Structures are given as C-alpha cells and as structure tokens.
C-alpha cells in the first residue's frame, strides 16, 4: 500500500478515535447535568457554566489548531489532529514527534514519506501519553479519598489545602512568564502581556462593582484572555520599534 500521511485511511482511523472521545465528553456532560438537577442546582447557573466555558475555550482551541498546522508540514493532518484533540498538548506533541524523528535519523523539517519513520513517530507520540490514562483509573479514587480524609479531619484546612494546590500551579505558570526576561526587552513582552491581562481582569471586577453588571463576571476570564492576546500585538510592535 502506497504510504501517504494524508490518506483516506488515516482520516478514517483518526475520525473514529476522535468521535469516540467526543462521545465520552457528551456522556459525561449529560451525567453531570442530570446530577446537577438532582442536587437542585439552578439551571441558569449550569447554563452559565456551559456558556462561559465554551467562550473561554475558543482562543486556546485556535492556538491548538495552529499546533496541528505546524506539525502537518511533516506529518500530514490526521496524526497531529488526533494527537492534539486527544490527550496531547502543544508542547509535548511537538517535542515527542521531533525526538522520535531524530531517533531514526530523520527530522520534521520535511514531509515524512517513509511509512516506517512515520509509524515510529506515531508509536513514540502514543507511548509518551500512557501514564495519565493508566494512573487516573488506578489512583483517581485513592487520591480523592486522600483529599476527603484531609477534609474530614478539618474541613477548613481541606479548602486551604486545595487553594494551596491551585496557587502552586498558578505560581509555576506565572513564573514561566519571566523565563525569557534574560534575553532583553523582547523577553519582557510576555510579562507586559500578563500585566495587561491582569489589568483587564481588575477592570472587569471594577465594572461589576460600579455598574452592578453581574453578567461581566461570567465572561471576565475570556474577556481578559482575548483582550490580553489582542493587546500583545501593539505591545510587541512597540517593543520591536524600541529595540529597533
């Protein structure tokens, strides 16, 4: 069989897996919705969660799509499409594909035409993401019990413990924003964007208070995210003109 990374065969295989995962999301969505009703939660609140999550997802999803396009030069569309729709994340997939190509003496700078090299890359990308899928069913329940135990002993400390966990994650990613500062003014661009977005978030909070505009609360994160991304364009242009 003549190999082609964009073949109908590849599209069919990949579509089946993506459809399966899409179905899983739908099944869990329905189950959670029903459970929310059972608990007597306000339908309006549930709808708001769905609406704001959907709006918030658009920009990051387009960034992921750009990752698919970037990888498609070497790997065609189906494989990157699959790997970034299911489990993958931008940074890992690119690294994994590059490392695999490297290991068999190839590179991602050109279209992969040798099915053996392509298969090697597919295998390495797949094997790299196994831990989550094995460990969640294995330890998910135990981890939850651990958290429940902490809460059972002291519920206030339980909440604080979880806040600590979030803040640890948020601090790591806020720290990451400063990783390019050593390269000079251009390296500060992410820092400026971070502050711009933080400022927008505060403005949203202010509008909410001053005008009692409760709706803005639900969309504050997508507004700040998109606003920050939009402002990164003039910020980058300004920094570039200063650097010359």
């Amino acid at each position, binding site marked *: 069989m003549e190999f082609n990374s964009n073949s109908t065969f590849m599209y069919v295989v990949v579509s089946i897996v993506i459809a399966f995962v899409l179905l899983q999301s739908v099944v869990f969505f329905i189950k959670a919705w029903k459970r929310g009703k059972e608990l007597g939660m306000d339908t309006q609140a549930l709808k708001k969660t769905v609406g704001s999550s959907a709006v918030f997802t658009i920009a*990051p999803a387009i960034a992921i*799509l750009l990752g698919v396009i970037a990888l498609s030069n070497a790997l065609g569309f189906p494989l990157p499409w699959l790997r970034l729709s299911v489990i993958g994340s931008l940074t890992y997939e690119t690294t994994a594909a590059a490392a695999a190509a490297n290991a068999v003496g190839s590179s991602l700078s050109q279209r992969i035409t040798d099915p053996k090299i392509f298969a090697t890359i597919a295998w390495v990308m797949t094997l790299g993401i196994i831990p989550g899928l094995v460990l969640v069913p294995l330890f998910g329940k135990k981890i939850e019990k651990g958290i429940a135990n902490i809460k059972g002993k002291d519920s206030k400390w339980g909440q604080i413990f979880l806040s600590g966990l979030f803040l640890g994650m948020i601090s790591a990613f806020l720290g990451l924003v400063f990783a390019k500062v050593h390269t000079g003014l251009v390296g500060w661009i992410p820092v400026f964007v971070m502050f711009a977005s933080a400022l927008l978030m505060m403005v949203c909070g202010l509008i909410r208070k001053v005008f009692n505009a409760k709706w803005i609360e639900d969309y504050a994160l997508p507004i700040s995210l998109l606003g920050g991304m939009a402002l990164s364009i003039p910020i980058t242009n300004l920094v570039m003109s200063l650097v010359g």
Partner: protein
Amino acid sequence: MKQELSYRDSVHRMGRVWILSALAMMIAVPVAICIYYSAWPPAGGILKGFLSVAPIFWTVGAIEVFTYVPMLGTGGSYVGFVTGNLANLKVPCALNSMDRAGVEPGTEEGEVISTLAISTSSIVTTLIIALGVVLLSQIEPILESPVLQPAFENILPALFGALGVVFVSKDWKIAIVPLVVMVTLFLLVPSLAGAVGLLVPVGALIAIGVARILYKKNLL
C-alpha cells in the same frame, strides 16, 4: 451521604471503562498504521525515541495525575485526562467555572460544575479543531498572518495573568511566597521553561507548606 458515594462510584466505574477504552483505541492507531502499510518499524528506533521523551513525559504525566485530579474532580478527571491540554485549557476552565459559580472543588456541586466545564471545553475544542482542519485552506492565511502571531505566542501569559488576579487576590497570603520563588527560579534558570510541568508540584508544596504554617498560627 450514601447517595453521594453511589454517584461518585458510578462515575468511577463509567470513567474507568471509557478511559481504558480510549487507551486501547489510542494504541490501536499506530498498530493500524503498521498493519495497513505493512510497515513495522525497527523496535530499536521506537525504543530510542521513546527513551528520549519518556523520562520527562512519564514523570510529568504522573505528576499531573496527582496535582490535577483533586482540582478537576471525578468526572472532570476522566474527561480531562483523555482530551488533554490540561494546564493551558481544562484546569483554568474548571477552576474559573467553580469560582464563578461559587462552589468549592471536592463538593458535590463543585463536581457537577467542573465536569460540565471540562466536557463543554472538550467538545468545543474538538469541534473547532475539526472545523479548522476542514476549512483550512480558507483560514490558514488569517491564522498564520504575521500580525496575529504575537497573540498566539502570548496565550499563556494572557491566561495566567487574568487567572492570577482571581486566585492570588483571594489568598494572597498563601500565594506570595510560591510566586516569588517561581519568578526568581525562572529568572535565574530560564532553561527550566521546558520543565514547567515538574515545577507545578514544587510550587504546590511550597504553597501548601506556607498555608499550613499560616493556618497553625491562625493567620488565615
């Protein structure tokens, strides 16, 4: 109480079936490629490629399970770990939704909101990428135009800047030390950028340690 247990247990049972089926399907993809094209790559090549990524990937993967499962809840974890893009999309989405809805993670309501947020986000992501692949020839020039590049390069700073305001202002006493440590760390050792996944639990341990001290001294 009994009902809560049975709901969570049923999510676990359902989740295990789905997540293990997803795993089987994922592995079936390279198998199908090898069979269809009768191209069995040398095991040595796969092993070499695997060994160059596994130490980081598997460590980060394991760490993600232990840090994100408590944040995402039961249903959210089973969907989130299958659909991926956790740190840059699913976790912020779930945290923000629970905060907006005024529910705490780990409670029954938190469980519902988190699962709804993550499933919605997964569905929307899948649809946007699928639509993007189909309409690619029309949208590629727009997406790849140089004008827009800074916007996509700066998505993480824009996301965590906004998220930081929400969560740091709520618990600034806990946040300040891990923030200073992480910023200093990345300023001094910029090469750590590739290993941010490994630093999430470090930040969490610092934050939880600080919180414990403040809590014991009644300062929270």
